[in-house]
């Protein structure tokens, strides 16, 4: 079986914030959207929302800057994982993530990021409009290739 990845579709997102609550309860035991590994950003004036979580980058900036090699891209599970035994909480990954997907819990003094709940993402079960899906990486790559191709081809032909 191929690795799976959490995919968020902003076109379907209604901005209800259930994923943030579900995530924080599953990950920290308290209902606190600030500690959620997924964030909803209201975008523009047209009631648009961007659900943002770790993109599990192949060539991740967080992995590149980590001075203690505490972050590593796990190619088998297709995700960037934190090794808390190595992490020194310097927050370089937090500063460098282009999506702002890496967070820092001040009271615990440690960083956090989406780990896709170890293969069972909680947020997807709470997303009423179905904007969050946990899909096969190969299938998702094909979907992305098709979507990009559709954008490249003039609309009159397709």
């Amino acid at each position, binding site marked *: 079986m191929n690795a799976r990845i959490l995919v968020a579709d902003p076109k379907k997102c209604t901005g209800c914030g259930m994923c943030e609550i579900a995530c924080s309860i599953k990950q920290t035991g308290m209902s606190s959207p600030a500690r959620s590994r997924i964030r909803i950003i209201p975008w523009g004036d047209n009631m648009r929302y*961007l659900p*943002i979580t770790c*993109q599990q980058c192949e060539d991740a900036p967080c992995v590149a*800057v980590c001075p203690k090699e505490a972050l590593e891209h796990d190619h088998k599970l297709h995700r960037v994982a934190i090794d808390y035994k190595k992490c020194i909480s310097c927050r370089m990954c937090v500063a460098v993530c*282009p999506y702002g*997907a890496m967070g820092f819990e001040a009271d615990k003094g440690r960083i956090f990021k989406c780990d896709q709940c170890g293969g069972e993402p909680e947020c997807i079960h709470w997303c009423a409009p179905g904007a969050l899906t946990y899909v096969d990486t190969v299938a998702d790559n094909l979907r992305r290739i098709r979507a990009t191709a559709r*954008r490249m081809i003039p609309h009159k032909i397709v």
Partner: protein
Amino acid sequence: MSYFQVNDQCNGCLACVQNCPANALQAIDQGPARTLQHNMTRCARCGNCWRICPQDAIEFQYLLRNKWDDVVKLQLDRCEVCGETLYTLAYGQGLASKLPTALKPLCAKHKAGPELLAQTHFPTKASSAKGENT
């Protein structure tokens, strides 16, 4: 920085130097002057010098002060958009040296990633019109 202070009652008898159990005090006689020196790293703040001083010259209260010393002062990098404090300039330069692309000082709210996602999923009219023409 001076935690160990003596007032003008001190006559340089060096009783404190003799009785310091931690060897945190020493005196140097050079030329016409005698200099009393104190080493804060060795000092255990036991108060023996203060107890022993025949002149009541040692101002021990300064050794018990809760005082912060400035260690280093560094320039800060702030978010280009909102001015939120991010990190120091040196920290930012260290990050940039490890990345293949340039790093703009931006806070979590104004990072480039969400903008990129928005452009992909909600193309503006200008960009879609451009797509039609090409």
